[in-house]
């Protein structure tokens, strides 16, 4: 299930309060990005990320634990917090 409109908007608002807020696009374009990424995660991304985890770990880890690992990996790769 995708995030609600309010949850997506909260992400959009929070991102604009960070020091590395995207400056080359408009507010509506930024919100479109959030919407598109959440749609993609729902349709494709979550399943692909889960499938990349080897067994038996895939079956042992909870969804929340997998999400935390995925966040840590993205944070390290792209130096964002």
């Amino acid at each position, binding site marked *: 299930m995708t995030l609600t409109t309010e949850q997506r908007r909260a992400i*959009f608002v929070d991102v*604009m*309060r960070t020091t590395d807020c995207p*400056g*080359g696009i*408009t507010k509506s374009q930024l919100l479109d990005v959030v919407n598109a990424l959440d749609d993609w995660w729902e349709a494709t991304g979550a399943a692909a990320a889960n499938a990349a985890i080897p067994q038996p770990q895939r079956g042992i880890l909870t969804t929340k634990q997998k999400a935390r690992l995925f966040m840590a990996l993205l944070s390290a790769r792209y130096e964002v917090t």
Partner: protein
Amino acid sequence: MATTRTALTPFSAEFPSSNFPGLTTINARPVLAYDASTQETAYWTLVAPQGLTGALSCIVTYMMASATSGNIEFEIAVEAITDADATDLDATTSFDTVNASGATAVPGTAGYIDQVSVTLTNADSISAGDLIRISISRDADDATNDTATGDLYLLAAELREA
């Protein structure tokens, strides 16, 4: 000849109880940081200077924290209270209708300044000696005229008489 009537700075700003810009420094410069999604407001109180007779405008100097495209819009309102006016300051505000800058393109480089002139058509019949307040907001919830992302840093504003 245009005359500067007063200069408004971040450190002289006053704030409502909610939805106000943060007072901070950027590179040691005091700024008011206006949010991109919530309309925030700051006030300045002063006495209208003697000699004030003409049309007023407010020139706002700002820079963007990160935006390099899109527009911003200011809304500026004036409250002028004359001696013996029946205005109970304990309980009321009496700002005139806001004066909007309209959509203004931000500088192409974050950190570069831009100066926006807003004609104060609605100036609450201001006259010399009045107790006045100037209200400056970023119209952040206007999806048409305020499209730039991230904070807007107000550096100063000038009350200018044409």
